[in-house]
């Protein structure tokens, strides 16, 4: 996968649990888990915005491009 999601890193930095984040962002735990485990095929801007707001970070802190 070319786009790597570093959600777990940011979550660890902010010391926030998955369920807590899911509640703050307003998406299901299952969907957040999909995102965290790099299984997601796409992410909506609205979701990204909500995650950035909840974790107080930039999109680049969560998403990273890596060559296969």
């Amino acid at each position: 996968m070319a786009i790597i999601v570093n959600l777990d890193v940011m979550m660890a930095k902010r010391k926030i649990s998955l369920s807590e984040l899911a509640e703050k962002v307003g998406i299901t735990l299952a969907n957040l888990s999909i995102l965290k485990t790099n299984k997601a095929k796409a992410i909506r801007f609205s979701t990204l915005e909500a995650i950035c707001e909840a974790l107080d970070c930039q999109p680049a802190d969560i998403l990273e491009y890596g060559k296969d």
Partner: protein
Amino acid sequence: MKKNTLLSIAIVICKFIRVLYVLIFLIFAGFFVHLQINPSYYNKIGLSNKLDFKNNSFVTSYKVSNGIHINTRRTYKYEGEQKDSDVFTLDQLKKTSLYFSFIKYSVVLFLGFLCFGEFQKVMESVKEVKTFQENNVLSFRRIGKYLLIICVLTSFYYHAFQRGGINGVNITPNLLILSLLAYIMAEVFKEGNNLEEENKLTV
């Protein structure tokens, strides 16, 4: 609600047709057994009564309502003037030909039964709003395959009698078109399945 009613009717029709297939097979099997037990009962029933001819062997071409042109060959084993109604009666059908026809049409019936079964499965999944799933793709592929086999099996016929035989080719384009449609539907459902997967994995 309207959609569900329509699908429910389609499912019931599928079930009815499957039962009909089983009944047809039972009647066919009964006929097959009875023909062997009491062949004289069928000495008046002929397989060929559409054309009358006097040659010992000839090839004729005629059109069937739902098929492509057929070359039907009829042969007599010995010289002399004979009538179709005397040579091609069911009681004179050779055992090998009888068994061959029985197996052939049994397979056709069985595949038809399976086709409707697969179609029923698709209808049931659509009714449960689980339309685009891998199983439906497989079901449509199976339907396409079964229809293709039925088309091949019904494309030829060979009936060997004690004093002659009838053989020919009868290609039914309807079955080929249906088979192609089933394969196209499989591709459509595959695409739908991919889109649904993608949609599911969009956070």
